[in-house]
């Protein structure tokens, strides 16, 4: 794979948070099927999903994924190199001390899990050592979360609007904050490889 340079990238990041909603499934599957098996950072995904279907989604994501996709339990420690997915019908927060908390609080942006909640709590814990990626989606969840990551000095990426099935979500983030990079899914995969290289 040819290298791409991404301004602002360094090898001091601690985690990646990915938010996605309508139209993000294909992109996510593609990313998970191509990232290196020894990718070093934890990848925390908050994807909008059917609230009352507990099973099936993680299996569908896992089919092509290089790594196991884990739906964390409440208070589960976050480990490097693992891929996590917010469970159905719970908000997923990151706590100081690097573990997860779940909650059944009210929906945020009509969503539970809410991307804003995962991103904001991750940003609070990881500060400028966090990478936030927001993919295709039909609402505005994640925009404030991305802003929070950017304001804390983190590294922000949204999916290229033309590459999105539905661009409302990344467009909302672009509207309220300065995003570092706008990338197609293929280039997001290159970003993962570049990070992988930096950590060698």
């Amino acid at each position, binding site marked *: 794979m040819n290298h791409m340079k991404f301004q602002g990238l360094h090898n001091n990041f601690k985690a990646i948070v990915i938010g996605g909603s309508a139209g993000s499934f294909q992109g996510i599957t593609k990313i998970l099927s191509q990232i290196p098996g020894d990718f070093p950072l934890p990848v925390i995904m908050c994807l909008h999903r059917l609230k009352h279907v507990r099973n099936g989604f993680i299996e569908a994501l896992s089919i092509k994924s290089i790594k196991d996709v884990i739906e*964390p*339990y*409440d208070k*589960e420690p976050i480990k490097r190199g693992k891929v996590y997915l917010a469970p159905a019908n719970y*908000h997923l927060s990151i*706590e100081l001390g690097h573990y997860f908390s779940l*909650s059944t*609080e009210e929906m945020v942006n009509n969503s539970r899990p809410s991307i804003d909640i995962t991103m904001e709590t991750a940003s*609070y814990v990881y500060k400028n050592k966090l990478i936030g990626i927001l993919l295709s989606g039909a609402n505005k969840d994640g925009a404030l979360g991305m802003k929070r990551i950017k304001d804390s000095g983190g590294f922000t990426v949204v999916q290229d609007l033309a590459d999105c099935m539905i661009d409302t979500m990344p467009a909302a983030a672009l509207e309220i904050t300065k995003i570092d990079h706008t990338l197609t899914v293929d280039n997001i995969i290159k970003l993962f490889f570049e990070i992988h290289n930096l950590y060698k």
Partner: protein
Amino acid sequence: MQEIHIVDIRKLTEIIKTKYGYDFTNYAISSFKRRILRILELYKFSGVDALAKKITDDPVFFEEFISEITVNVTEMFRDPSFWRILRDKILPNILLNHKRVSIWHAGCSSGEEVYSIAILLKEMGILEDSKIIATDIDDRILERARSGVYTVKNMELNEKNYVRFRGENELNKYFEVKNGLAYMDKSLVKDVSYRKHDLVNGIVFNKFDIVLCRNVMIYFNQNLQNDVLKKLHESIFKYGYLAIGSKESLIWCEIANKFIVVNNEEKIYKKIKE
């Protein structure tokens, strides 16, 4: 959204502990902070200091605070497969040895799950032989639980869950809609004892065959979970059952070795050691 600092939260929890005896020190920070922010917005406080002052000066407001700080989002038959296993496996097992079943609903919130268990027991024909105690930290939410009045919108979700639970009837057999609200059939819970009880500071008050405490301890940090689990463990008869939320786990808890997993998917545990 504004940010609040942990030191301010600490000050607030200290004030509450000293003045009212409730201890929120070991609540999970992420959600507790969101609840505080929500209250600041709801009541238009300028900051945590203003909230702390109001709490200090106004015990009536403090009751409202308790209602707002606790999360009261719940459903009837949430995770229908859990309720099916309770009906098809756990309760029949208990009934092999006992005639009566005693159940403690710890953290019953607005009471949806109390109705769920009551409907389940009624359909099994053992409601009359069961003893249910439902507790919560929040007086106001207990009032709502007692009243058994829910929004029609929530009932739609509850009905869907009930269908997936594969209940015997239609859920609407158990409620009436009047003026856009659903009124539950109160005869279902006529023998339920609703009581105020704080899992954090409260005492162990009885022993039960089943303790239901689903999605309650997720609001606590690991230390507090350990403390509360000790009390729950003491409140269960040997070979009785503990049910926690499907995404909770005893793996990281000190008391794990005193339970065995009966159903991992639904997080039902059996107490095997005192």
